[in-house]
């Protein structure tokens, strides 16, 4: 592990993004726009007094889910390009360590993810008046973590795709089951035993649980700490698995 090579990789990835302002725009703006869509979707609901708005519940979860989806897609395509263009093979003939490369990628996209999370959370709070008990900083932190999770899974999945078309097809396989089972549509403790057990091993479930902890409690809870640790552990394990897919010597 060499910090200067890792940083050079991050700078290179960000430099590639800089040449593509439309992608930057999409990364930063799309989650906020989707949040607006969710807001208008529930605009006309009638609530008994004292009941929190559905937007406060669903919109909050969206803050954890959108960055995950966007970063998964961006990363899997970018890494696939690196594999197919021959630049990855070339890099692996140089002194760069695999970890420098993967963590360089993860760092670059985490910076983008943090910006994205700030824009989306800011929109939720200041434009749509989202009200939750806990501190917004925790929401941003969870957003960034799920985005990094998306980066890690994207890096891993790119190894199993030969074309960009295949890479996009991994979204229904890897991302959508997590969205269905994370507690957004049905609370996880109301699922049948099998689905509940599956949702227990999917990382996005912990992101949604963490966001619910922040929404319900003014101070950080032990459950929130556990959720953060679980997501971070998933990130590290997935990145390690991804590093196994980088082979210096191939047939």
């Amino acid at each position, binding site marked *: 592990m060499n910090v200067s*090579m890792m940083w050079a990789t991050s700078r290179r990835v960000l430099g590639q993004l800089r040449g593509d302002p439309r992608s930057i725009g999409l990364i930063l703006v799309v989650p906020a726009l989707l949040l607006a869509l969710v807001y208008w979707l529930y605009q006309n609901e009638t609530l008994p007094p004292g009941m929190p708005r559905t937007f406060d519940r669903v919109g909050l979860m969206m803050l954890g889910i959108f960055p995950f989806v966007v970063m998964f897609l961006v990363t899997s395509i970018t890494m696939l390009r690196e594999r197919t*263009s*021959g630049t990855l093979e070339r890099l692996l003939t140089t002194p760069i360590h695999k970890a420098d490369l993967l963590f360089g990628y993860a760092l670059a996209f985490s910076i983008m993810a943090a910006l994205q999370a700030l824009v989306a959370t800011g929109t939720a709070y200041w434009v749509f008046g989202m009200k939750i008990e806990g501190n917004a900083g925790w929401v941003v932190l969870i957003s960034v973590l799920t985005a990094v999770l998306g980066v890690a899974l994207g890096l891993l999945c790119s190894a199993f795709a030969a074309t960009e078309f295949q890479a996009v097809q991994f979204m229904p396989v890897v991302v959508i089951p997590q969205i269905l089972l994370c507690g957004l549509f049905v609370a996880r403790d109301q699922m049948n035993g099998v689905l509940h057990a599956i949702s227990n091993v999917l990382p996005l479930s912990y992101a949604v649980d963490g966001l619910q902890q922040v929404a319900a409690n003014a101070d950080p809870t032990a459950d929130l700490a556990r959720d953060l640790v679980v997501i971070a552990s998933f990130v590290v394990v997935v990145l390690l698995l991804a590093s196994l897919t980088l082979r210096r*010597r191939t047939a």
Partner: protein
Amino acid sequence: MSHRAALPAPEPPAGPVPADPSGLPGPAGVSVEGLRVHRGKSTVLANITCNIPEGRITGLLGPSGSGKTTFMRALVGVQKITAGTVTVLGRPAGDPANRHDVGYVTQAASVYRDLSVLDNVRYFGSVHGAGREEALAVLNAVGLSDFAKRRAGDLSGGQFSRVSLACALVGKPRLLVLDEPTVGLDPVLRAELWTQFAAMAAEGTTLIISSHVMEEAGHCDTLLLLREGMLLAQLTPEQLRQGGETDDLELAFLRLIQAAAEDERKAAS
């Protein structure tokens, strides 16, 4: 086959080739012993043994599909090999310590199309600890100074492949492996590159350059002739001319190949 008897090294194709028939002095930068590569059921390289002299230009020539790229990948250490040993700069091929010293330019230019020329060279330089100054010097050497700020993907084919070359040069490799570096370049540029390769060899860099343009063989100090995964001969361009009884290297090479094919037919019948 009147010229057949005059060939310098008419070994049976599967047999070992003499260690260094070119008779060049100096230590071996690369030595290969009994290298075999199988991909699936097909044999890509069959029992290759040779020494490649240090500080010289060695041309790797042969028809397409003869195993040139696989041979180069084995030297760089990115190829899974079935048998044999490959020693590069005194270490096994692919040894981590070699990664600073071996530069590899693939046939298809492997650079980032969406980065500027300078950013490409700086990135590949940074993994060798080279900075902006070195990157600019290398761009100057390959004649791309005026294009430093241009997006690599916007350049013409010839300029684009020179970006790839620059990305390998910036690490100041002791061994430079170039897979068809002059394909698609105009004659002026080709001549310039060969002059540059000669200058690098004079400074002590070992160059291994594949090509299927036989007239370029004349720029090399020694030649490795590959055919169907076997080393046909290792010789100097002069020996090739004598062996083929012509000054035309292309014709000489063709005659050598035909003689080998003839031998094979005879052996089979």
